[in-house]
């Protein structure tokens, strides 16, 4: 048998043309985004520590699409259109959410095209009026604590802390701060005037600014709630 080269090319072209037609799915294109809010004000959280889960039933196996809230309380998903159930699982987040019984309830979300959905939550505490004062390399902060939940579900303050970092990711995690000042909840005498001071260490490479936030740890809750991020020039 004799091979004819142009037949091979022809065959290859036919196969390629046939297979090119439709070999991938459309990517998801609908954006679902929003913030975790209380009284219209976004909550400040630790980066990537508060998960938000979406479930879509009807596709055989069950599993969550998990995203996390950003530092400023915002979140976003890129999804296919459809009906989803949204939940912030378990004891996550420094707040109570959609909770009539012992367990948290889910929220039905119907996605068709881009949409914004703010999730209403009730934080245990809020840090308000954080005023920063830099003198030399010492940073002093003055703030108020607002106890939002005062009924049977109220929780105590475990500690408050001032965190300072080189980047805008500021938290209690190892890479979230270069300096911090802690105060135990039991040492807080007045909720309306709490002061913390921390010293910025020498930075390499040098930079003349830092980012600061105040975090509050609630007893029995893993995630902290923070004050808004502030950039301070030394």
């Amino acid at each position: 048998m004799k091979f004819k080269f142009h037949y091979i090319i022809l065959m290859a072209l036919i196969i390629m043309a046939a297979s090119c037609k439709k070999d991938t799915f459309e990517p998801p294109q609908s954006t679902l985004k929003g913030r975790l809010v209380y009284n219209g004000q976004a909550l400040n959280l630790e980066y990537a520590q508060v998960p938000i889960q979406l479930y879509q039933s009807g596709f055989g196996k069950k599993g969550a699409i998990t995203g996390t809230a950003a530092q400023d309380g915002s979140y976003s998903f890129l999804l296919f259109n459809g009906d989803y159930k949204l939940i912030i699982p378990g004891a996550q987040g420094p707040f109570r959410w959609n909770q009539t019984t012992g367990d948290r309830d889910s929220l039905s979300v119907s996605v068709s095209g881009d949409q914004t959905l703010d999730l209403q939550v009730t934080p245990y505490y809020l840090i308000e009026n954080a005023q920063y004062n830099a003198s030399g390399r010492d940073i002093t902060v003055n703030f108020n604590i607002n106890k939002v939940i005062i009924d049977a579900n109220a929780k105590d303050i475990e500690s408050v802390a001032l965190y300072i970092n080189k980047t805008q990711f500021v938290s209690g995690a190892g890479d979230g701060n270069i300096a911090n000042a802690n105060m135990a909840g039991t040492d807080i005498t007045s909720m309306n005037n709490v002061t913390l001071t921390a010293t910025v260490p020498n930075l390499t490479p040098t930079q003349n600014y830092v980012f600061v936030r105040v975090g509050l740890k609630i007893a029995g809750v893993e995630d902290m709630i923070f004050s808004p991020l502030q950039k301070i020039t030394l």
Partner: protein
Amino acid sequence: MKKIFIITISAALLITASCKDNDFLDIEPRDVVPTDKMFSDPALVLSVVADLYQRQLDFSGLDNGWASFVDFSEAYPSENGSAFFVQRSNWGFSEWNTWDYGYIRDINLFIERATASTALNEGDKRRFIAEGRFLRASYYFELVKRMGGVPLITNSLTYEGDVESLQTPRSKESEVYDFILNELTAIKNDLPASSDTKSRASKGAAFAMMSRAALYAGSIAKYGATTPSVTLPGNEVGIPAAMANGYYAKALAAADSIIEGKAGSYSLYTSLPNLSDNFAAVFLDKSSTNHESIYIEDFKVGTNKVHSFTVNNQPYSRSEEGADAGRLNPSLNIVEAFEKLDNTYAPIPTTDENGDPIYYANQQDIFAGRDARLAGTVMLPGSIFKGAAIDVRAGYQNAAGDFVSSGNLPGTSTSAVGLDGPSDGLEFRTQTGFYIRKYLDPVTGSGRRGRRSDVAFIRYRYAEVLLNAAEASFELGDEGTALNYINQVRARAGLTTPLTSLSFDRIVHERRVELVFEGHTLFDMKRWRLAHRVWDGQTMTVADLKSNIGSATKHNTQPFSLWPYLYVNPGSPNNGKWIFREVKLSRVTGANRFQLGNYYSQISDDILSRNPKIVKQPNQ
């Protein structure tokens, strides 16, 4: 044409002739042993049970690889490809999980078939069944430590068209512990009561597992109260606090059974006069003089059952396999935790009260007067291994006070940095200043890939049983008994001044230094609910490292190094002496952060969607 006719006819004849007798083709397979044959001969049953033994799960194990020992800042991985251990800032929720119901099914089938067998004699049969149940209890213990309450499957399941009847919900965490304790109680008398039975289940092993399991359940009940969010409403995770004392009493009773000699003669190993060598030999001596090891995973040179622990972790300068060495480097964190002989805690003294360096004539002088287990667990700078001293030197300090790590020592042709390092980032040598000594095989050839090592991995040993008894009686309020037990362990380590009072912190400390690198760290920290406090994600400074030693809640998030430098300053009385510096290696960028969701490992979505009766873990 004629030929074809003949061939056709003879073929037809052949076919018809051979079809006649069907039994002719019905031969027994030679590569599969049928069940009834298998369970007719004790030697064949032993090969089945050997497979079940081989499949046991350990957290750290000599055949799990060196990296199974390295986490939790007790050691530094001196292999650049494994630097993630010290670079990550958290553990995934699925870390440490296990869900091997295939193994449980195989054990259940084994128990059922052995029970049904009529050809075995009664004694063999009872022992085999007991071994099957021992291994099943052992794996359920492994499951409950990692996953909390799991579905209890105690017989082999058969699918008959109905999936739902096979879907079993999770049992309560306490029910799984109760199952383990009841199983072990039921079988203990069917197992040999001899301290010479080490690699197969024995009565002593059953008691040892009972004491550990009951102790875990008791402490989860007691200390679980401090983390109320690590529970599930159905108690699949979490044990009610009221059950704590019942479990502690069982732990004490089981430990006492071993101590009183009801399971054979077990005792602490005290064969060698040098206490550090003696402690190292606990793990090396497999002869009948070792009455300390209760249940081991055994290895044998010349078979496939050997391990590479010595190959991977031998000192670089004494290596028998070139650069295949030096990976597991114990950290300064664990080294300084070994207390002084007067029962006090102190950091390794590198500087005096004015902050000036202390000069030592010999490298090992800085570690003088400490718990003998330190040199038995960790290979200190200047230790002898396989006939010569290891060469650990980070460089030298000159008269001007500069630390120099390049070139040669002044006036010599010896490199400034020792053959064993330490140098930041130089892998396969120590980077912390220490090598591991526990399990490291001193036999010539053990460091070669072609031979490897047959040092056994001890799963249960007598010293742990004593510590279990001490902890259980302390929690039950009997401090006198607890002191008696814990002081026995300490006296063997050279801490001959007995403790006169006991605290929770003391017990945590004693287990840490006695049992480090034996796979206890994670589970101990979990059951005491200390893990999220000790591994809190905060970075550490040298000042942090040196303070609060001996406190149960001292955070331990980053491994530190202790680097020896030679002081070279002719004309100074300190010339030729050693000074030491604490160093945080450049790769140590993460800090261990144990979240509440890490207390019980994630059950994968795949398992959850196959069995909707299984509830998710808390805080994930």
